[in-house]
């Protein structure tokens, strides 16, 4: 068998979990803060836990091992004209399916049909006692048992190690168009975000740049339908359509956090669209901070150079990169959360949520 820290099967993964008093799973390390644990904690790499278990294009479902890079998944789905509509992030950087679920980070496409939580169907995972357990299912509709697959989205490896994951997929739209709409200030950004959300256009994505006066809107669907929709949007909000290469590069930069200073810290803040001006003002007073608002104004990613001190955040947040506390902003904790932790990880083999 392979090294205990690089299991290649679920049985080996379970064995790896049992082999140390404290363990944390790591994928490609693209969101390193999640696995940055103080003290001794064995790192279990999912690097060898890769590949599709099954893919049924006619069912709109696939099951893959947790270490499979999302880039590979996207490529295989694309061959059959399908995709994960939430635009898995950090594909070029090597992000894995398991790490993506554990971090709970969605791309701009989550706007239209929902995010990881809306497409995950089932999981096979290893609990803190080293047991391989399955929850959820492999079909697109299932209401049997408690929805542990959803629970694992954003769970940061603190309740179990994901071994294999089943997802629903959708047919990939034939064409896309990206519009850059002028937004002179934050009030204009909010106006475009909320109007775009309510309009008949069914936008595929709508993100706001915070360091240029612009909102980016993406249409997706059959090519002959998009021209008229784009023209109507540009009639309402001045701006321009991006040439295909520029559009591709724009969304690539969003998906890879290419705008964030290298080596610095990166956090995800959960907001609502009307909070954007306040969040933007908070970001702007911080030295060297850059930010990108995604998912129609429901999330802001903020990056700062290494070493910069962060003020307390008024909004709930998760640190993906850099030193400092994992969670930012106001938090609530309940006895039941401890009880669920004790159920899945009685010996506290995985780090606590606060670590």
């Amino acid at each position, binding site marked *: 068998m392979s090294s205990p820290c690089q299991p290649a099967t679920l049985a080996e993964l379970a064995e790896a979990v049992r082999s140390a008093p404290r363990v944390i799973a790591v994928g490609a390390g693209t969101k390193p803060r999640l696995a940055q644990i103080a003290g001794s904690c064995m790192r279990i790499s999912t690097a060898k836990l890769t590949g599709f278990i099954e893919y049924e294009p006619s069912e709109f479902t696939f099951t893959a091992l947790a270490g499979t890079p999302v880039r590979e998944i996207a490529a295989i789905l694309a061959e059959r004209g399908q995709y994960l509509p939430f635009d898995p992030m950090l594909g070029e950087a090597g992000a894995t399916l398991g790490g993506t679920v554990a971090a709970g980070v969605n791309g701009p496409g989550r706007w239209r049909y929902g995010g990881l939580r809306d497409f995950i169907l089932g999981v096979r995972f290893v609990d803190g006692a080293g047991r391989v357990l399955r929850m959820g*299912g492999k079909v697109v509709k299932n*209401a049997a048992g*408690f929805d542990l697959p959803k629970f694992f*989205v954003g769970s940061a490896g603190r309740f179990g190690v994901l071994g294999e994951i089943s997802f629903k997929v959708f047919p990939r739209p034939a064409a896309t168009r990206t519009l850059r709409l002028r937004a002179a200030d934050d009030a204009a950004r909010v106006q475009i975000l909320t109007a775009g959300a*309510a309009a008949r256009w069914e936008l595929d994505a709508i993100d706001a740049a915070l360091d240029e006066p612009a909102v980016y809107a993406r249409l997706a669907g059959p090519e*002959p339908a998009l021209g008229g929709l784009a023209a109507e949007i540009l009639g309402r909000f001045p701006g321009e359509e991006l040439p295909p290469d520029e559009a591709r590069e724009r969304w690539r930069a969003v998906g890879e956090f290419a705008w964030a200073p290298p080596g610095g810290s990166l956090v*995800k803040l959960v907001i*609502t669209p009307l909070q954007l001006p306040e969040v933007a003002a908070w970001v702007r007073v911080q030295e060297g901070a850059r930010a990108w608002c995604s998912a129609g104004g*429901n999330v802001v990613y903020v990056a700062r150079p290494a070493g910069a001190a962060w003020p307390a955040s008024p909004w709930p947040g998760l640190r993906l990169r850099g030193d400092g506390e994992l969670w930012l902003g106001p938090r609530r904790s309940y006895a039941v959360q401890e009880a669920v932790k004790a159920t899945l990880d009685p010996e506290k083999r995985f780090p606590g949520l606060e670590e």
Partner: protein
Amino acid sequence: MSSSAYSPVLRRLVALLPAGRVLTGPAQLAAYESDGLTAFHARPLAVVVPETQEETIAVVRFCHAEKLPFVARGSGTSLSGGSLPVPDGIVIALNRLNRLVRLDPAQRVAVVEPGIVNLAVTAAAQPHGLHFAPDPSSQPVCTIGGNVAFNAGGAHCLKYGMTSNHVLGLKAVLATGEVVEFGGPSREQIGPDWTGLFVGNEGLFGVALEVTLQLLPRAECFHTVLAGYATLEQAGDAVAAVVASGLLPGAIEIMEKLALEAATAAVHAEYPPGCEAVLIVELEGPREVVAVERGRLEEILAASQPVEIRPARDAAERMAIWKGRKSAFSAVGRLSPDFIVQDGVVPRRRLGEALRKINTWSREMGIRCANVFHAGDGNLHPLILYDGRVDGALQQAEELAGRILRMCVEMGGSITGEHGIGVEKRDYLGVMFAPEEVDLLRRLRAAHDPFGLANPGKMFPESSAPALAQSGLHPLEKSGVISRE
């Protein structure tokens, strides 16, 4: 009833609440003895009707302190016996805890109490061009609290997901008495998805007090097509062709012959003659998109050997197609004194095979069975007809239901797509999950409810039989308000 007639525990419960909240009269209790799974009934000790979140919390904390089992209930439309009372416990009826707490059209969010009716949310959102997407066919009466507890579905799940996909956050009182708040108004979240874990708990974790729902803009344009086929296989092949084409219809439904006949008799629905099956496909979206996609859909259907294709030419024709579809269940139900509905799921490509098996068993066992199903997501709805007054008929019907459930699991599907396990399918939890997985589910329940007081007897196999059998339609069904699907 004078207070001296109450048992000591009920006297303490009555003392806890404003007057009139606790019902114990036999006639009052009778209305709560059963739910949409009419084969079972049980009389609770009392029914409590709280009017505020504080009263609800007080009742649950009282139950915890007194070790008194409780069953939270909305409108009692569960098809899996999910709100069946327990004889040694109380029912907490949430119909008066039904405020629309906040409607935020700009951010497309509604905050509601659990007793609000599903369709009332959409009614409130409609002036703003918005709606609440989950549309179980009991939506004129079923409550959001019940939708949350059982993760209710509907005809639009392939594209839009189930209730859980539209719940952004919630406040609940757990069976321990702890009040929790998970999630919030944002569509994004951080940390483990506690909201997602709660939705679909079948009432085994506690009682939702306030639910934050996402609202969606209503599609600008719909295009609905009804196509008749000489055989069920051809209808199934047409579904496969639609799905393979890259279209993502809002709904794909199939009705079988017995259901077509019943709908024709009940609501004068008209179907092409000589059809064993009818397929309904609905496209929706901006008009430019639908204009392109409808051409594509027509090509696909024309090549699928239909007997006839009938596109809805206007809103009235579209409504007529849906009226026939949505009435099919209660219509078939009128053909028989009793029926049970299954909602197992099979992989879509095995729909034809699954239906052949069901029909073979149905013939062999001499039990009539009608099929209407959400073809787009492989969600079967075999409706098994029986006469509860005939000795052994219910058992026979359950035997057929059991075969169907096992088949769904063997084909890689699920024992329930949207009705939940409840009382009805609890003996099949172990068919779908391994013993250690059932054990994990039990331990997760215990983490929320260590004494097992919240909705006992549901989801998990138990040794005791749940309740007595009865016969006949649900009162709301008789009046045509609800149907079972």
